C-alpha cells in the first residue's frame, strides 16, 4: 500500500521537489552507509575496550538509520549514489585510523562527523519545510528523528573526552571538510 501511496505522491510533486527529494535521500543514504563503516572501523580497533560498548550502541542506531534509507530509496524511486564502494572503504579507514589515536581520537572523529551530519540534516529540514511541509511530512519526520539521534551521538562523544584527542582542532576540521566534500559529491553522483 505504501508503494502505491508514494507513486501517487510522486506524481503530485513538482519536478523541482522530486529532484530535491531524490538528492536528499541519495546523500542521506550515502551518509548513513559511511557512518556505518566508520563505526565498524572503530569497533575493529577498540571493540574489546570499555568504550567498545558505547561505540556498539551508536553503531546499532546507525544500522537502523541505514535500513530506513534503504527502504526509502525504492519507495521514492531514488537512484543510489555510485560512490558507495568508496564511502565504504573511506569510512572504514577513517574509523580505524582515528581509533588508533586512542579512545579520544575515536570520540573526536564521532563528534566531528556527527556535527557535520546534524548541520546537513538541519539544512535539509529547512529546505523541505520551505518547499512544502505537508507533502514532505513523512520524510521530515524521519530526518528530524535521525537528526536528534545524531545529536545524541555527538554529545556522547563529547562526554567521553573527545576534546582530549591529539590535535583535536586540526582533526575536527579535516574530518568536517571531508564530510562536506562527500556530501557534495553524493548529492550529484
Amino acid at each position: 500500500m505504501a508503494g502505491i501511496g508514494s507513486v501517487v505522491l510522486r506524481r503530485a510533486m513538482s519536478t523541482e521537489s522530486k529532484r530535491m527529494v531524490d538528492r536528499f535521500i541519495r546523500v542521506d543514504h550515502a551518509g548513513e552507509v559511511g557512518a556505518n563503516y566508520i563505526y565498524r572501523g572503530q569497533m575493529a580497533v577498540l571493540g574489546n575496550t570499555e568504550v567498545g560498548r558505547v561505540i556498539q550502541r551508536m553503531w546499532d542506531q546507525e544500522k537502523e538509520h541505514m535500513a530506513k534509507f534503504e527502504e526509502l530509496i525504492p519507495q521514492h524511486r531514488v537512484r543510489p549514489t555510485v560512490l558507495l564502494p568508496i564511502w565504504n572503504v573511506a569510512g572504514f579507514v577513517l574509523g580505524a585510523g582515528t581509533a588508533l589515536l586512542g579512545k579520544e581520537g575515536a570520540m573526536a572523529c564521532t563528534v566531528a562527523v556527527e556535527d557535520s551530519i546534524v548541520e546537513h540534516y538541519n539544512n535539509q529540514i529547512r529546505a523541505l519545510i520551505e518547499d512544502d511541509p505537508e507533502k514532505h511530512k513523512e520524510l521530515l519526520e524521519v530526518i528530524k528523528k535521525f537528526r536528534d539521534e545524531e545529536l545524541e551521538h555527538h554529545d556522547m562523544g563529547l562526554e567521553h573526552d573527545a576534546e582530549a584527542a591529539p590535535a583535536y582542532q586540526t582533526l575536527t576540521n579535516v574530518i568536517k571538510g571531508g564530510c562536506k566534500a562527500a556530501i557534495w559529491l553524493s548529492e550529484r553522483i
Partner: protein
Amino acid sequence: MALRFIRIVCFSTSSLLKTAGRSRPLSTSSALRCTKTDQENSGSQHEQHTESSEDPHMHEEIPESEVRQRLLDAALEFVPTHGWSVEALAEAAQTEGLPAVSHGMFPRGGGDLALHFVGVCNAQLAEQMAQETQQVEEGHVERRHTREFLRDAMETRLRMIVPYVDNWPQAMSLLAQPNCAPDSLKLLSGLVDDMWYHAGDRSADLNWYTKRVTLAGVYTSAQLVLVRDQSPDYQETWEFIDSRLDNLEQLGKAVRGVAPTVESLAQGLSGAYLTIRNITGFNVRDR
C-alpha cells in the same frame, strides 16, 4: 500598466538577443516573448504575431504545449507514408488546421517526433505495469516471477513499435544523433528503471546500476532484432529476449557466487588489520 512593463521587458530582452546575433525581426521576437508570459490576458494585438496559429480564438484558449502535443500525436498517422520527418509533421499540421510551417516548432524535426513516440509508449507501459503492481499490492493477483514479468514487459513495449517497424531504423538513427541522444538516453533509463521497479527490484546499492544497464542492453539489442525479424508474429524476437534474459540470470548468479560482497570485503579488511596488528606486536591496550 502591467502590459507596458511587459513590453519594456520584452523589448530589452529582444534587443539583447539581437546583439547576440539572432536574425529574427525585432517585433516578432518581442511579441512571441510577450505572448508566452501574457497568455492569460492576450489582447488582440499579440495574436497576429504568433507563428503557431492563424485563428485568434484558438490561440486565446489553447496553450502552446497542448498544440505541440496534438501536432505530434497527429503526425504519427503520417509516419508510415512520410517516415519520421518534417513532412509528416507538415501534413499533420494541415489536418489540424495549422499552417504547414508549424513544423518549425520542432527544431529537431523527425527526431522530435521519434522522441515523442518513445515517450508516449514508455508512459503507456509504465501505466500498465503500475496497474499490475497495484493489483498485486491489493492482493487480487499473484506477483509474477521477475523473469516472466520482464519478458512480458519487453514484449508489450516492442509490440508498440510493430505498427511502425518498417520505418523504425530511421527513427533509431535519428535518436542516435547528438541533438537527440541525451533525451533518448534519458527515456531509455526511465524505461528500464520502471521495468525493474515493477518487476520487484528494491535494491539500494550498485546492483541498482548493473541491473538497469544490462536490461537496457537487452532492450536495445531486441529492438535491432525486431526490425530485421521476418518470422510469423515476430517469434524470433521473443525467443531472442528469452535467451538474453537467461544470460542475465546466469550472469547474476555467477557474479553473486564469485565476487566478494561489500560485507565480506569489510570483514576482510578488519581481519587483515587485526592480523597485521598482532604480527607487529601492537596489541590491544587492556590485555
